[in-house]
């Protein structure tokens, strides 16, 4: 099981355990983490599972692929550290990952 921490805009943090192979979005949904809508259910078709990856994890998590970059055009307040959480696959390498939930999903 891999640990992922979600930090809300008000500073509230939640650490969840998730099986490898699931996505960070699924980890959020399975644990009722607020602020991640995932309207399209993880199909990379909506941009409402937008998260900011913590500075220390950006290299390990990597940059978005082309399709995800296209979808990020539809997100709000996109930053260098933005990723669509449905496109981040959980693995041992991401154990301890910290992501921040944006104030609003588009």
């Amino acid at each position, binding site marked *: 099981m891999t640990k992922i921490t979600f930090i809300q805009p008000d500073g509230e943090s939640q650490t969840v355990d998730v099986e490898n192979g699931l996505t960070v979005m699924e980890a959020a949904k399975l644990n009722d983490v607020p602020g991640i809508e995932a309207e399209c259910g993880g199909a990379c078709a909506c941009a409402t599972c937008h998260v900011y990856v913590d500075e220390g994890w950006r290299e390990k998590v990597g940059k978005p692929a082309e399709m995800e*970059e296209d979808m990020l*055009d539809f997100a709000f307040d996109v930053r260098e550290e933005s990723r669509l959480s449905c496109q981040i696959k959980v693995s041992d390498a991401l154990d301890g990952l910290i992501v921040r939930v944006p104030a609003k999903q*588009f």
Partner: protein
Amino acid sequence: MTSTTLAPAAPLTSETIETDAIVIGAGPCGLFAVFELGLLDIKAHVVDILDRPGGQCAELYPEKPIYDVPALPIVTGQELTDRLMEQIKPFNPQFHFSERIDALSRQPDGRFRLTTDAGTDFLAKVVVVAAGGGSFTPKRPPLPGIENYEGTSVFYSVRKIEQMRGKDVVIVGGGDSALDWTLNLAPVAKSLTLVHRRDDFRAAPHSVEKMRKLVEEASIRLLIGQVVALEGANGELSAVEIKTSNGNERLPCTAMLPFFGLTMKLGPVADWGLNLHENLINVDTERFESSEKGIFAIGDINWYPGKLKLILSGFHEAALMAQAAHRIVYPDKKVLFQYTTSSSSLQKKLGVK
């Protein structure tokens, strides 16, 4: 339905289209409804806000494979749409695209009067709501106060190019809509700035090329950044604030066109007095009829105990709905249950005999 909708609406005109059934939504369930209704000699007109059939399948995942449509191990959203269009061809459905049913009321004779946002008027014996996740509407950027400018300075579509003549226009987006409107409005706008979060565009390459030429000629400006705030009063925009990699810039403007794609909203369905269950139309599982006799709901838009939002469910619901609709459209006829494999009359209707 509320008593206000029972009152006679505006008088019928010679333009009013009279038909058996209005299908609201041309997604997979609306399309298959045409087939099931057609087998029972019920003629349908189909209305959809998109400019083409397919609903969510065509709009959200045309290239993506669907694995759970019975008998089709893999089928893309677009393929499924194309196959359904093929399947319903024998029944010659009439489509009304880029329109949304706004008003629905019951006439004294029991039929339904429906009017779209483009003014198209219908009179039908039954209504089949196959609205899926709701009408596809342009996404509204979550900028504080943006609603105050909508329709006066903020527009999600342009009906008349002349509308933008002499204005300082800001277009936001990186896809075909943003680029097409940039090219269309550059000649009439007083000034035009295209704002996009990155210097990479999803739009068709030749549109991007033309845009870059206009930037080179200084006919328009390309600003890489994101809109963070609006400035103005009384519905009139005076400037937008753009966050760029070099800090924030105040960009004076009098019109803004944000193109951030589409999202699904329940829309006018919410106002028709139907019993809803968490924004879904409550139906029975024998007829998939709403709380209003003659108004049916199939596909993602309905709810009943055990409901699953699967395409295959919507197909089943269409079949049962058609039987119930037949009793309303042809009250004096008995439904003779027939199989397409053995009934020569069905096969004739399908044009295969």
